[in-house]
């Protein structure tokens, strides 16, 4: 019983890692970026190709995954997204869904629709055993990594000048410009960061959920739920929400398998009704 | 006609309304003045129900309306305009005012009969727009109207509800001096039966249209009186002219 509870907790945390990047664009920039999962796919396929075809060690591919996804995000931001920062939620949803569809088609074309996997280093495989509990090495790694990134993000946003500039720009563009802040660059950089983190999350998640071109769409729903509950405008919030959801999902599947994903949706609907702005939302 | 009793509201440590006691009899024109941040618009929001007070009561006539929703208060005769134009961009002026008339008469739920069969509502809407000299623009979409005309449309919408009490939030806001003549002619032309409260910063306007003045500062109602009394009031001078007076 207890070991499965721990397993549930771990998987929950791991889901949280996938969405940390989304909380940057959605949380900081108030932009509904459903294409987040496409950026995740960019990173994931980059890692897979480097490990599988070029024999790179897994960990070494992570920075590349980050950069790849960040560059793609940057390009898309320059061409499309920057025109929609003040558009309606619906328009942002639709545009980014369109990008998701295009990315699915593109990746299916180049990589076929087969499931892919990566070879992770030996020391990340297996698990520690403490009595009846089993802690999978990979999941521990994910959690530590995710916590570190979140801490870095929160620090960066609250304590650095960059963070202050972006927060100011999101709050009031005109005022920020008047203060001499290069709003365009701040947004561009932040979006790239969000995309890069998505790529990182994607690369890290292959081990857990596999990889094929529909990855972007399948996990879209989950990621979006996380942010809607965690709230716009809060990085810590999406993190907590991801954990709550991951745990509910795992708990549902483990303890009430006949309910399926019912539990997640129920939790989401309930939480949203109680707090429409998300648990920590500031918008 | 409109009265409040010990209205209180705070946001955390910020007190926006403190023990507000108001009593506005029928047919009198009040101006509500005070420095920025005094809580004037907040008071209107509290009275109209957009904001819920922490404590206190609001009365329209004999009836207590504190628990009523905003649209219910409007149905009982309490109307307001907004400081920033809050209009229907893609509806024409005529459609907007007709909608207000239809809502007032309780006909807006009707989905079976076409608009053309509600001629009396449209005619009344037209008449209201005509009284504000907007008849030439009735077919134009609201977003195509000039700013001054939009301010007038704000008032038209409020008038269409046939209010007993009308709260105007800076009716002339943003309208340049030479265009505001039409606006204030409209305010002047308002029925003498109507209780009017308007927020205003321009003292000329205040002294011209108001028969009584309320002064607010820091969330509190400081003083009430006739224009002459207020002009002589030490406290009011302090609030508005404070530093200059000391320098003199």
């Amino acid at each position, binding site marked *: 019983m207890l070991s499965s509870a721990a397993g549930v907790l771990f998987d929950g945390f791991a889901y949280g890692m996938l969405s940390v990047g989304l909380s940057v664009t959605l949380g900081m920039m108030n932009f509904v970026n459903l294409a987040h999962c496409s950026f995740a796919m960019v990173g994931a396929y980059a890692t897979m190709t480097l490990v599988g075809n070029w024999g790179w060690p897994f960990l070494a591919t992570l920075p590349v995954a980050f950069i790849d996804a960040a560059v793609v995000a940057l390009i898309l931001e320059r061409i*499309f997204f920057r*025109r929609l920062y003040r558009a309606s*939620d*619906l328009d942002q949803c*639709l*545009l980014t*869904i*369109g990008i*998701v*569809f*295009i*990315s*699915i*088609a593109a990746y*299916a*074309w180049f990589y076929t629709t087969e499931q892919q996997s990566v070879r992770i280093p030996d020391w990340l495989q297996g698990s520690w055993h403490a009595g009846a509990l089993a802690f999978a090495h990979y999941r521990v790694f994910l959690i530590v990594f995710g916590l570190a990134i979140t801490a870095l993000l929160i620090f960066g946003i609250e304590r650095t000048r960059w963070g202050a500039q972006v927060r100011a720009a999101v709050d009031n563009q005109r005022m920020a410009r008047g203060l001499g802040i290069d709003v365009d660059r701040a947004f561009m950089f932040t979006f790239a960061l969000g995309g890069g983190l998505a790529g990182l999350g994607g690369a890290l998640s292959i081990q857990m959920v596999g990889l094929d071109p529909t990855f972007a769409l399948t996990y879209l*729903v989950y990621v*979006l*739920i996380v942010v*809607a509950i965690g709230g716009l405008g809060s990085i810590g919030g999406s993190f907590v929400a991801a954990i709550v959801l991951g745990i509910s999902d795992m708990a549902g599947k483990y303890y009430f398998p006949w*309910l*399926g*994903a*019912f539990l997640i949706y129920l939790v989401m*609907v309930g939480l*949203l*009704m109680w707090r*429409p702005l998300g648990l920590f939302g500031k918008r | 006609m409109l009265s409040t009793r010990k209205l209180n509201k705070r946001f955390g440590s910020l007190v926006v309304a403190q023990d507000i006691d108001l009593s506005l009899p029928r047919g009198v024109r009040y101006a509500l003045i005070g420095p920025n941040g005094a809580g004037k618009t907040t008071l209107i929001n509290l009275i*109209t129900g957009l904001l819920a007070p922490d404590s206190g009561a609001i009365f329209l006539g004999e009836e207590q309306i504190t628990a009523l929703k905003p*649209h219910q208060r*409007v*149905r009982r005769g309490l*109307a307001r305009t*907004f400081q920033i134009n*809050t*209009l*229907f*961009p893609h*509806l024409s002026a005529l*459609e907007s005012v*007709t*909608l*207000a008339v239809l*809502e*007032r008469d309780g*006909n*807006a*739920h*009707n*989905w079976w*009969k*076409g*608009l*053309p069969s509600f001629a009396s509502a*449209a005619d009344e809407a*037209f008449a209201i727009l005509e009284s504000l000299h907007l008849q030439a623009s*009735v077919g134009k979409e609201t977003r195509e109207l000039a700013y001054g005309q939009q301010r007038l449309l704000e008032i038209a*919408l*409020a008038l269409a*509800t046939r209010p007993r009490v009308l709260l105007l939030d800076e009716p002339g806001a943003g309208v340049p001096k030479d265009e505001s003549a039409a606006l204030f002619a409209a305010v002047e032309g308002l029925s003498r039966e109507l209780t009017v409260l308007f927020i205003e910063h321009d003292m000329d306007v205040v002294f011209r249209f108001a028969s009584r003045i309320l002064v607010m500062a820091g969330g509190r109602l400081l003083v009430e009186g006739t224009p002459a009394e207020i002009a002589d009031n030490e406290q009011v001078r302090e609030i508005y002219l404070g530093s200059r007076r000391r320098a003199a």
Partner: protein
Amino acid sequence: MHFQGLTRWRPLEVVFWLCTLLPFVLTPSYLSLASQIAITALFALSLDLILGYAGIVSLGHAAFFGFGAYTAGLIAKHYWTEPLSALLIAGLSAGILGYALSHIVVRFRHLALIMLTMGFGLLLAEAANSAHAITGGADGLQGFRVPGVLGFRFDMFGRTAYAFALAVLFLCFLICRRIIHSPFGLALRGIRENATRMPAIGAPSQAHLRKAYTIAAVMAGLAGAVLTQTTSTVSLETLSFGRSADVLVILILGGAGRLYGGILGAVIYMVARDQFSGVSPQYWYFWIGLVLVAVVMFLPNGILGGLNAFYKKAQ
């Protein structure tokens, strides 16, 4: 005097509806596709009522479509196969579901609203999946056949099916048209244009929205029921998030808030999909994605909106 000519039928409209009869003679081998288009058009029309006119963004509208579909299927399977009465019951029950949900839905805006509607849709889909004793689960509801309507048989040529679907579409269209030109329609537009102003003119916005949501649910349920009755099968897909997303894309493509946008979008989308899906599903995703991006960036009011703007400029 005012608003005169508002409800008059424009010649283009008459032409359009006459054209809907063309498939009977011009493309008789495509009649089953034509029925699908008519059904989807009705579904999109129902979404237009809440999205295009009232401004409620719903990512879960398939809940009512599927609910109507399953209701009609269950009636045909366990009770009787007469379609018209089942159609009415299906529509009504979808309406009851819509009315119940509307009490929650109308209290929310923006992202929370989008998420909530999506959540309700997902919940219903999951429930249907789990309750496979009733719904047949992932295999769908099978083992029944609706032979025909009013004495006409549903045969493999699809003539009766198309006639049936077209008739239901037209009837609902007439109702929508009436709504839009009525005081209620004006009120809905008012809510969409400025939700803050509505209470300030004495409008009970939430009551209006509940009514619109319920009517839209009824129509979506009718569309689902027609699908069931013309195909004699129901699948979980009718409740899926995919279907909710599809109808949203269709409506945006055609142009929301313009009465005909959903119909136009349905025609274009379904014909294109029919042509492309033969090639490969990837192709389809790619083009739909491209269209979506193009519509949002360049044609925010959909095709009808673009045509309207073009027409205005040309004058």
